């Protein structure tokens, strides 16, 4: 689609654009994955948000060895490796790194960047509580956002006024609405929207210019509505979920497609932009942002309890007419590991569907074993549908 070509072209030039923006005095604020860092705050002080969701190359884990032991989620170890090695152009170009710390694995990253990176980066972090839909947790989260807001104003020299914040909220709401529309289109079996497209848009949105991104999404939707549906005939419809779908880690998608499946929807706590909520633009804007991001968003996989997240996955699997669920998480990510133990039974009882569990350490040698598992899973789905 032309929209995707435009995205591709925009992203190819993005680092140059960012360099120019820096030269004009604008600040580039890099933020860690998890979905609890509102870009609205960054946009409202005329800074540029860059989301770090790239991973997938085992070599980045090697760069992390001197900073962390190996028994942490490889996505977060990769972030440590990318940040500390000086080899990643995205980490190199930002002026500031902020982490809205979610579980222990993201806390690892923030703590290391704050400690070792004191001479390399300006950095900031604050904790995001994990108690699902709890008002006292919401208050704490709002405190964290408020402190971050103060820090941004201090760093950029720009005051975040209500007017600027409202404008930023409106822009981000628009982006979320468009992503929601794209997702809704995918419920239909006759849609031109593919998983590859959707993921490319999500991943691109973390590093693209926000206004450009909104324009691309609008164009994509228009094109998709006018395009012929993509045929998935004979392909098993797979709902893909898990901890992180990193930018650069597409092996599971490749394997599913090679084995005769098609991904009809994805739900990840990291790597996919949360879009199911809207931030209100009237009243106390900071409180609105906090409530939307913490309470209105479907909670991520490390929340306690995790029921809401799992219930959402079950519903999505039904809504998107999935024939099977592939659960893909990083090795040593305990919240997801344990949930993957009891979720298959929940899934079976609620939907009749089976689940395939895949775990990764971004190691090339995994491909062989993953291939066998994915192929077997697709075959079993096919057999089941053939009766």
């Amino acid at each position: 689609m032309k929209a995707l070509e435009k995205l591709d072209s925009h992203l190819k030039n993005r680092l140059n654009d960012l360099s120019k923006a820096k030269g004009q005095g604008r600040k580039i604020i890099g933020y860690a994955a998890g979905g609890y860092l509102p870009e609205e705050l960054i946009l409202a002080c005329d800074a540029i948000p860059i989301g770090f969701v790239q991973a997938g190359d085992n070599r980045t884990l090697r760069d992390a060895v001197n900073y962390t032991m190996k028994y942490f989620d490889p996505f977060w170890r990769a972030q440590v490796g990318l940040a500390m090695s000086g080899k990643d152009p995205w980490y190199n170009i930002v002026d500031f790194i902020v982490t809205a710390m979610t579980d222990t694995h993201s806390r690892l990253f923030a703590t290391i960047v704050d400690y070792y990176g004191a001479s390399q980066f300006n950095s900031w972090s604050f904790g995001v509580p994990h108690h699902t839909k709890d008002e006292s947790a919401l208050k704490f989260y709002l405190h964290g956002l408020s402190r971050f807001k103060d820090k941004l104003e201090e760093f950029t020299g720009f005051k975040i006024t209500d007017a600027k914040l409202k404008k930023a909220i409106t822009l981000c709401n628009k982006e979320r609405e468009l992503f929601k529309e794209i997702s809704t289109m995918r419920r239909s079996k006759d849609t031109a929207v593919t998983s590859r497209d959707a993921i490319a848009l999500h991943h691109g949105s973390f590093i693209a210019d926000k206004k450009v991104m909104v324009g691309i999404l609008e164009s994509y939707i228009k094109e998709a509505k006018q395009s012929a549906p993509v045929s998935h005939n004979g392909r098993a419809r797979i709902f893909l979920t898990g901890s992180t779908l990193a930018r650069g880690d597409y092996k599971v998608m490749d394997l599913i497609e090679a084995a005769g499946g098609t991904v009809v929807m994805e739900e990840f706590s990291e790597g996919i932009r949360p879009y199911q909520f809207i931030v209100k633009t009237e009243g106390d804007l900071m409180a609105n942002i906090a409530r939307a991001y913490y309470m209105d968003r479907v909670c991520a996989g490390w929340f306690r309890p995790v029921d809401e997240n799992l219930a959402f996955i079950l519903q999505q699997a039904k809504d998107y007419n999935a024939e099977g669920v592939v659960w893909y998480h990083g090795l040593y990510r305990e919240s997801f590991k344990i949930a993957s133990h009891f979720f298959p039974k929940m899934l079976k009882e609620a939907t009749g569907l089976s689940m395939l569990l895949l775990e990764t350490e971004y190691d090339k040698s995994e491909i062989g074993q993953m291939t066998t598992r994915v192929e077997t899973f697709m075959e079993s789905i096919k057999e089941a549908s053939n009766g």
Partner: protein
Amino acid sequence: MSILTAGVDIGAATAKTVILRDGEILAHAIRPTGYDVVRAAATVTEEAINKTGLGIGLGDLKYVVSTGYGRAAIKFANKTFTELMCHAKGAHFLMPSTRFIIDIGGQDSKAIEVDSRGNVVNFAMNDKCAAGTGRFLEVMAHVLEVGSIDNMGPISLTSNDPCEISSTCTIFAETEVVVLRAAGKDRKDLIAGVHKSLTSRVAIMAKAMNIQPTAVFTGGVAKNVGVKKYLEEETGMEFLVPDEPQIIGALGAALFAQREVRS
């Protein structure tokens, strides 16, 4: 009166003994450890004693220090010291300017910082992983059918395009090498890749410490010219290799034995 002491280093792959007389190395012996560490210690020590040509026996040794993973099992030893201490002692004795040591043995690798007195001031060992040890090379030598493991180093130097082997685990790296071989990669490039992979593991550990000259490379793997080359590239430091890098631990143990006698 001359004092004879011995240091016995029982490693996972090889057992070594060094006999000292008043600071002079009289003889040394190396043999595979095998299954029975007690027997290996006795046999290698007997061999070293015989090599002295002095017509002496075990009872003529004034003091014996044992080291290595099997050190506690050697009943004829008077005392044990860890191999880290012994490598530091031995390397510093041969080269008093030694400040940093990397030792890669059969089942572990170590990085040791020493001060001007040869005392250990900082050290690190590989995490629970065979990928940075001699075992890794042995496994790969078998997979790549190079015959003797001694061939690995020289072959690695003939490559201009080492393969990237990313797995952190010896077992999975073996899988990766098999896949690359099936994909038609040149054997010398695979062998070079194996060497690079091993040294990168060790270098990561070393680079967390203060690498400074004189840097010394000890252990059986130090005889591998390919590992030495890649280690120097990774760390940016020249490493000196003693003539007999495998016996440095045993030498250090023998020196500790001398010190114990004196004290």
